[in-house]
């Protein structure tokens, strides 16, 4: 169902809006059908809504595919919601139960056959479910991976100890060379704006401007380091889809996602870049990262600069606590 595109940057709200429109549409249809005397019984309405949301919308509309664990959560919550709806009032509850009671209590040939079929099929179905659950599986085991393990209090890089809670990015400076995160933040453009810099003619915004100095000059230097070392995996759009990305499982981190560097302090990123996959703590099991410990290849200054470039390019701000 790709003929209605999911709009980049608006996808979460678009999904909620689409679901709301669908539910409103169903509600209106049912209202009109009821007016015409052929309303959908509550029992079937509830089942249809659940099936639509879980078996159609979440499965076929949302792309890439949603992992089963999340669909299971959504399925359970939506089932609870539908139960709350159909039993919100006593009249609605009675209406919902009616087809079930009719089948259980009915004396027609149809209800008798249906009852007998259910009596046979339900245990068989449950048995099949239990059998399938217990059947040995040769699939790869499910991973509950901690993507952002807690960092240590300090980290030692090139012989110097950094306190991650308090260390500062040394190149986040204004044109006069003073540490000024507000200045650098003011020169970041959100990616969804479709451009990298506010003013290409300004030496304070354009890293390639020959007069660029301070923060924006170091962004350029960080970019050079990135394209010499990092983009093969993390991609030239920093979206984790570099030339070699799909040789790895999982593929490298997507910095443009709101859940990666946007959630972290720069010092956290500094620690991860410096120590690489091999330096992940026990909490980071199963240590599914092949990133090299960049402290063996880059200087401390180069690590700081490349981090700054990543934030600048993605349009995200590093997390701070004050």
């Amino acid at each position, binding site marked *: 169902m790709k003929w209605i595109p999911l709009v980049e940057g608006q*996808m*979460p*709200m678009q999904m*909620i809006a689409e*679901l*709301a429109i669908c539910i409103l549409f169903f509600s209106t249809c049912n209202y009109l059908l009821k007016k015409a005397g052929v309303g959908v019984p509550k029992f079937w309405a509830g089942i249809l809504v659940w099936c639509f949301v879980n078996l159609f919308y979440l499965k076929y509309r949302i792309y*890439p*595919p*949603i*992992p*089963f*664990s*999340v669909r299971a*959560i959504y399925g359970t*919550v*939506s089932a*609870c*919601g*539908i139960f*709350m709806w159909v039993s*919100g*009032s*006593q*009249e*609605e*509850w009675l209406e919902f139960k009616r087809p079930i009671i009719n089948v259980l209590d009915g004396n027609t040939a149809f209800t008798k056959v249906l009852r007998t079929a259910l009596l046979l099929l339900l245990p068989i179905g449950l048995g099949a479910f239990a059998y399938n659950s217990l059947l040995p599986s040769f699939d*790869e085991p*499910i*991973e*509950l*991976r901690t*993507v*952002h*393990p*807690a*960092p*240590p*209090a300090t980290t030692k890089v090139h012989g110097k100890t950094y306190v*991650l*809670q308090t260390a500062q990015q040394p190149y986040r400076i204004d044109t006069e060379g003073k540490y000024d995160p507000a200045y650098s*933040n003011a020169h970041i453009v959100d990616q*969804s704006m479709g451009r990298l810099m506010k003013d290409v003619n300004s030496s304070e915004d354009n890293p390639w401007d020959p007069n660029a100095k301070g923060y924006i000059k170091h962004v350029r230097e960080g970019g050079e380091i990135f394209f010499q070392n990092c983009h093969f995996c993390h991609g030239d759009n920093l979206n*984790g*889809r570099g030339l070699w990305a799909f040789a790895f*499982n*999982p*593929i490298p981190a*997507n910095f443009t*996602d*709101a*859940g*990666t560097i*946007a*959630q972290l302090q720069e010092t*956290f990123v500094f620690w991860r870049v410096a120590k690489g996959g091999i330096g992940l703590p026990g*909490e980071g099991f199963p240590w599914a990262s092949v990133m090299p410990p960049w402290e063996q290849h880059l200087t401390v200054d180069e690590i700081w600069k490349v981090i700054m470039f990543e934030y600048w390019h993605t349009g995200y*701000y590093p*997390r*701070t*606590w004050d």
Partner: protein
Amino acid sequence: MGRLFTPMTRGKKRFSAVTALIVAGVFLTLPIILSVTAMAGGGGGGSAGGPPPEVLEQRKAAAAAAAEAGESVEGEAVKIETGRDVYYKTEGPAIGMPAPITADNETFYPRYNFESRVLLWVANQQHLYYGSFVLAVPIFCMCIEFAGMISKDKAMAKKYDQLAYDFIRISLTAYSLTAILGGILIFTFLTLYPAFFGYLSGIFRPVMHIYALTFVAESGVLYIYYYGWDKMREGVLKWVHLSMCVILNVIGTVLMFLANSWIAFMMSPAGVDEQGRYLGNIWHVLHTALWNPLNVHRILGNMAFGGGVVAAYAAYRFLSSNTDEERAHYDWMGYIAMSLGVAFLIPLPFAGYWLMREVYAYRQQMGITLMGGLLAWLFIIQATMIGILFLTTNYYLWQALGRMTGGERFQKYIKYLVFILVVGLLVFITPHTIVMSPAELKAMGGQQHPVLGNYGVMSAKNGGINAIIMTTILSFIWYQRGNKVPTVSWSKFGNIFMGCFFVVAQINNIALAVYGYFIPANVRIGLSVPQVAGTLSCLLLMTPLNLAMLKGGRQLGPIRWGQIPPRSQYAIIMLATAFTWMMGLMGYIRSSVRLFWHVNEVMRDNSPWAYTHTIGFAANVISFNVLFFWISIMFVFWLGTLGAKKVVIKGPVSEPIPAGASPQPATSH
């Protein structure tokens, strides 16, 4: 005491009451006053376990070497060593022993052929459940008794009084059980973790004495309050009685704060140096980085939990009732208890946010371990439980609309509220770290999902939970209006204003949640303030406005207490179980975040159990704790019914009970 309340003249009676109050106050605060001398002595005594033998040997060798080097041994004894506070960074005399450096052996960790940590976990959790319950119930009693006293309707006043009495009666047996469980907990500490408990009790020596004496004071006031109920039911004496409840709650709160200081110290130690030596300032030891956020969070949590337990009791009695009168009484009791519980549930997430903010401020890695790392999935379970609490509350209110003539006006809109609640909950519980097979990971093309990944971060979650809370407030306002129609001249304007207010608050909430993705994290965290302000405005402005509109309003019919579908009572029981389960879960999370530390960064846990359990194992132990608590509390409830004398209820069985009025109580004292 009995003589004190024999018939007297009005003046004498008042004088005696005041005298009794002063004497009782002095008597009850005496333990605390006496403890001040203990405070002056400070903590930091030798720890029971002490340092391991090899460390003692090293120290002796160092002292001998110093003596050999010609340094005066006497001079050493006089010299006071100083230390630097690990949190406050102040210098102080290192008068306590260092934290023991333990090793995995029977000396430091005596054990049965079972995991000591789980034994301690169960003992601790059970004590906490009962402790929370008996601290919360007197606060309810205070509110309900006060409501009865200021009520102009004599019948209502009597019913409120009876309800307060019912509440305290339930808690009385639980109080004894709390003390017993406290004893079991201490014995468990002493026998399984002697080194750690010795160190902790060395640091908190004076506080622990005050704690014990405060417990004595709490018991004294509780018994006077309970047994003096009949004697102090009229006039000034009733106010004295209520004052006793106030004192009871003050003492109970102090008691809880003191106990909180121990766990706060274990998470964020202060008042000691890097070796764990006490530096002579007991206030620093008490007033650690997380003490106050924990205090606020626990007060609110206890209240919500206590309300849930009492409501579950009422629901159980409702379902097992044989008469309409009993059903009416327990329906009303359940409603009051649940309302009180939910009133404290609503601000609970905000207190939780404050606590987490302080955790992050104290140690970034502790915050990340909790919210983004090792324990993140437990937070998803917690979010699910919070969602269940709010959804169940809404469901109960919608069912309760059915027992009011006119309530059906609102029931047709329930489906829209369900949609907001479900979407809010789905956003709130979408995990940031998704559980998936490698094949699913590959199909998704990365660790984060481009659509759902955005729901996994705090900005969206703030929006989700605020949307849920606002919807709950709206359900409550509908409930208030169930059988009434506002007749004030400005009712049309008021309705439009209220509708607009809710819409604007919801738009503000969602817009800020979306905007949060485009700004720095520190500003984003600040956005939660206007979001919360919008939600609280709905609660604090719209609810009173609604009441003002309904004053003197037209009654559409009576509240038919007792005529509510049984599934509403199951909802209450589910609410209480969810509270219990969530308390167990959060206690485990809070404790686990120390990872391999007894006292964070000061005393290492070298026992064989210093690892984090799997989620499944933790969930099983939590479930066991919940089950054990509910079985034991059912026993307590049953004991409570033994003490109550059954009275023949005379009342209009078939006649509807007037709106706003409560039914006849089923039991008497």
